[in-house]
């Protein structure tokens, strides 16, 4: 059928299985919004308060479902407002398709009103991007974008469509949803030496990241752990990949990781890394990082193998497929000595754990845990609250921890929690801080408009806590610009947006507030007051090694 470019965009999105898209209209994307109006029975558009919020919502939607999130924005500022959202998705390997309008082809390059070279701007933060100069390329470009976004290591793809292309008419033929490619198994000749290395290990440790979640390889990973009697830890991106209470799971490791997890990795003689990239927050000082361990690294992304660590075995391939080939070569072996050592690490972790009473971050999050359903997505912003949540919130189901890992984007959480609630069709939770919340709290308007059930646990300490923690430890307590003397009344703020909230100054009040919040239809802010000098512990000082770990303040 003969359709306008704008109709082709929307029809192709529907054809590719998009039910919900996020965005914000504007002059150069107005035709697409007219088509969204026309096809509103087949596709839902969620209007955000700001394009950044829309991008984070698409990201949260994608993280919760594994399907590409779609965000639509106009040219110029609409497009540049997506940048932080796209970069956040890029570094965390989240599939996303961003569609932007642009000025007429004839005006491109003339600095017209609201014209920006968005393909140029997003070049280093997209997996790929397109400027569609010909209507005949439009539908296939969108399909290709979905393939690239979801294939191999996922990531964001941007498509810039000038207004005249949206208006032009062309024959549209529906096609089947694309099938992401790039799922390859590691080369056979690499698998058996890796298996030998694993079989010889006396103290193996499995370290997984977001790639294991993408590959849905948890079952195979757990089988491997059982066979070789290995403990499991993860990067922050791996959280919720296995149930928090799994007996072999030691939790996140790294700068603010669980003591037992970091220690087990540090003492291992073989680290099996699955879809994780040994970021500096994981390794600390690379020269001192797990020097005694041989690393078996499996990742779909060849560029990650041996990038920051001296990998003994590099297996480029899909984790699930590669583990399926690897497992038959692995000998069952019990390692009571190693397990005893791991148990000792756990005991030490319990010993140094924060067991104070009252409104400690840990107690607040333990209170939250009681309210979480199996399917509840918990999003976070970035800072101390994020690390506390990563350490304490309990998960049962994969893809339920929604947090900006690589980029560390403050302000990510509001949009992401909205997107996650849309994806799971259930109440979501946002754990945030007063600093991060201040960045994109405008999305409260979105949550109210669409009556998104959402519990916002705002860990309010009146400071930018993570920077303050560094200033306390490394900058002689010079609290430069980290004290927030804002006097914002968050309950009144919630009410002004048309939502509701409650203050919690002690654990009883917190429990009452959470009970109210989890019974509420729409968004609800729990203004949870904590002390400004709470620390995230343990802490590996930046550039430090496990020898420098701080487990208690005053150590």
């Amino acid at each position: 059928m003969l359709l306008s470019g704008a109709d082709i965009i929307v029809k192709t999105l529907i054809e590719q299985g998009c039910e919900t898209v996020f965005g914000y209209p504007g002059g150069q994307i107005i035709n697409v919004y007219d088509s969204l109006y026309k096809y509103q029975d087949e596709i839902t558009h969620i209007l955000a308060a700001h394009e950044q919020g829309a991008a984070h919502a698409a990201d949260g939607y994608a993280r919760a479902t594994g399907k590409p999130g779609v965000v639509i924005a106009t040219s110029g500022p609409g497009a540049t407002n997506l940048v932080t959202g796209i970069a956040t998705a890029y570094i965390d390997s989240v599939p996303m398709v961003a569609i932007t309008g642009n000025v007429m082809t004839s005006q491109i390059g003339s600095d017209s009103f609201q014209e920006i070279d968005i393909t140029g701007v997003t070049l280093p933060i997209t997996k790929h991007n397109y400027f569609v100069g010909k209507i005949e390329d439009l539908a296939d470009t969108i399909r290709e974008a979905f393939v690239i976004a979801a294939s191999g290591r996922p990531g964001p793809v941007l498509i810039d469509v000038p207004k005249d292309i949206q208006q032009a008419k062309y024959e549209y033929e529906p096609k089947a949803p694309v099938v992401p490619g790039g799922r390859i198994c590691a080369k056979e000749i690499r698998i058996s030496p890796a298996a030998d290395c694993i079989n010889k290990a006396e103290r193996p440790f499995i370290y997984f990241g977001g790639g294991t979640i993408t590959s849905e390889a948890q079952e195979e990973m757990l089988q491997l752990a059982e066979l070789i009697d290995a403990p499991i830890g993860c990067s922050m991106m791996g959280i919720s990949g296995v149930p928090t209470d799994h007996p072999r799971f030691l939790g996140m490791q790294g700068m603010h990781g669980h003591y037992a997890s970091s220690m087990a990795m540090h003492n291992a003689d073989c680290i099996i890394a699955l879809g994780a990239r040994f970021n500096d927050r994981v390794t600390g000082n690379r020269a001192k990082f797990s020097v005694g361990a041989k690393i078996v690294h499996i990742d779909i992304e060849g560029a990650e193998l041996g990038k920051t660590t001296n990998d003994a075995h590099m297996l480029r391939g899909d984790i699930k497929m590669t583990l399926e080939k690897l497992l038959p070569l692995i000998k069952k072996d019990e390692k009571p000595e190693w397990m005893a050592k791991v148990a000792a690490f756990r005991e030490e972790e319990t010993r140094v754990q924060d067991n104070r009473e009252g409104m400690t971050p840990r107690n607040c999050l333990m209170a939250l845990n009681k309210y979480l359903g199996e399917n509840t997505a918990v999003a976070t912003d970035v800072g101390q609250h994020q690390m506390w949540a990563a350490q304490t919130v309990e998960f049962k189901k994969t893809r339920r921890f929604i947090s900006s890992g690589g980029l560390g984007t403050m302000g990510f959480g509001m949009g992401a929690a909205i997107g996650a609630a849309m994806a799971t069709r259930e109440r979501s939770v946002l754990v945030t801080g007063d600093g991060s919340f201040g960045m994109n709290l405008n999305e409260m308007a979105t949550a109210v408009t669409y009556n998104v059930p959402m519990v916002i646990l705002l860990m309010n300490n009146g400071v930018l806590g993570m920077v303050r923690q560094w200033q306390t430890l490394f900058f002689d307590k010079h609290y430069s610009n980290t004290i927030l003397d804002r006097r914002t009344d968050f309950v009144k703020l919630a009410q002004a947006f048309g939502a509701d909230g409650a203050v919690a100054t002690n654990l009883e009040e917190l429990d009452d507030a959470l009970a109210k919040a989890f019974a509420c239809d729409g968004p609800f802010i729990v203004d949870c007051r904590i002390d400004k000098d709470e620390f995230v512990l343990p802490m590996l000082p930046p550039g430090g090694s496990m020898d420098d770990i701080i487990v208690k303040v005053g150590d």
Partner: protein
Amino acid sequence: MERYTIAILVNNQSGVLNRVTSMFRRRQFNIACLTVSETESPDYSRITILFEGEESKKNQLINQFYKLPDVISIKELHAKDSVSRELLLIKVANSPETREEIRSAAEAFEAKTVDYTRESIVMQVTGDRKRIDDFINIMRDFTIMEICRTGLVALQCGDATIRQETN
């Protein structure tokens, strides 16, 4: 810091060169020279780049190139099993006193005179980089008015081709 030559086969589309050079910019690599041209197939372009950098970063760079959907294949070229050529145009000042000396140097390097006036001589030299560098050095005894080099073009020896490279 070592010098490396890599050849990259890419889709022949606008913006691809930008994507490739952006990888160098991100890693603070300085490109010493770069050539781009269409290949035996109009669908592909070949980019040859000579650059300086640390070996570990160079290996990273090559891995990262495979992340670009427009990159078909990459080959690092080594002097021992590849041939490389560059073309130089050099304009030197002409005068009755230097004329003969310039001519004999040019003969030794098989330089071709492509433009000749009372005031200037433009010569063309082809060869590997060293030969071009040497000729420019000799010409420094005279007055070099300006030079322009094409940058390297390079192919592997024997029947090996860049199309056979896979990630």
